[in-house]
């Protein structure tokens, strides 16, 4: 358990450090897509944490959910832009709601322990 937490934390910090030092630059126009992708990723992570607490964590579901949610969210925003519809808002609302549901589930689990 603690090995998993520490490994995750180390990986997160490593990602942050690399992200800060890599001279990768994304144009502002695509910032919107990246933002919604990050929201989807956070949602997936909280979903994974919740699944882990409920003892029904599946590695394949977690990874595939992370990847597909991220790409789908960015793709949805892209299509919305092309169609002139603000699908961005829809994605933000959907992921936001799921995020809070997952957080609520985690909170209940922690308190009931």
């Amino acid at each position, binding site marked *: 358990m603690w090995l*998993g937490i520490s490994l*995750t934390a180390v990986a*997160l*910090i490593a990602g942050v450090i690399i992200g800060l030092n890599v001279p990768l630059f994304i144009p*502002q126009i695509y*910032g919107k897509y*990246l933002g919604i992708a990050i929201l989807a*990723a956070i949602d997936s992570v909280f979903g994974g944490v919740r699944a882990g607490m409920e003892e029904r964590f599946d*590695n394949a579901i977690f990874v595939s959910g992370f990847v597909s949610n991220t790409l789908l969210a960015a793709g949805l925003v892209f299509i919305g832009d092309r169609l002139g519809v603000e699908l961005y808002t829809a994605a933000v609302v959907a992921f936001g709601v799921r995020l809070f549901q997952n957080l609520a589930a985690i909170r209940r689990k922690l308190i009931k322990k």
Partner: protein
Amino acid sequence: MPTRLYAVALVAFVLGLLITVQARVAGQPPGEILPAARVQELTAELRRLEEASAGLRREAGELEQKIAAAKQGQTQARAALQTEIEKYRIQAGLVPVVGPGVEVMIHNMPAGSLPGTEQYVFAVRDEDLLRVVNELWGAGAEAIAVNGQRLVSTSEIRLAGTFIDVNLQRITPPYTIVAIGDPDVLASALEIEGGVAEMLRAFGASCLIKKKDTVRIPAYEGTMAFQYARPIKEEVRG
């Protein structure tokens, strides 16, 4: 379970990477970045301005063509006007002209050529010259000069005392009338039977008609000032 841990760690790594990059992009100073809406707005404006610029450039090209055409037209008009002016100057007799024509020499009969005559029995009068000139005009002469005096629209040939005045200049015998036109036609108009040459000879004056390939006729030397005559304007005519 190591694989499970690795997967979670990988996801955490990617998440950290994404968040940092996004934070860096979003955290840029506002001077360097522009909101997406503003970018679209500016792009649209740029496109509009480019279209406007292309349109204006096209218009400028068309106008330049028009200017060039107008300039060309002006030059042509000026050339046409010059030709017109030259034509009317020739018609008015203000330029010396050269061309084929005839030369008519008229002289009084020499004194004493007939028995019992001391003086001229017959002196060439203004009417005789007028007749000759009239005949020449009638035969299609384009320019006529009498003793170097170009005949213009206001020229007179009249007797003043015992001399003849042309263009207010006194001329003395022998009289030389030069005319430009078809030499054959002019000569035959004078030489016609019962015509002016025959009449002059009958009166005893000599009348010598020479056809020439080139004769020179000087310009009118007086001034043409219209003091009383005014052209009639279109609206006054009715």
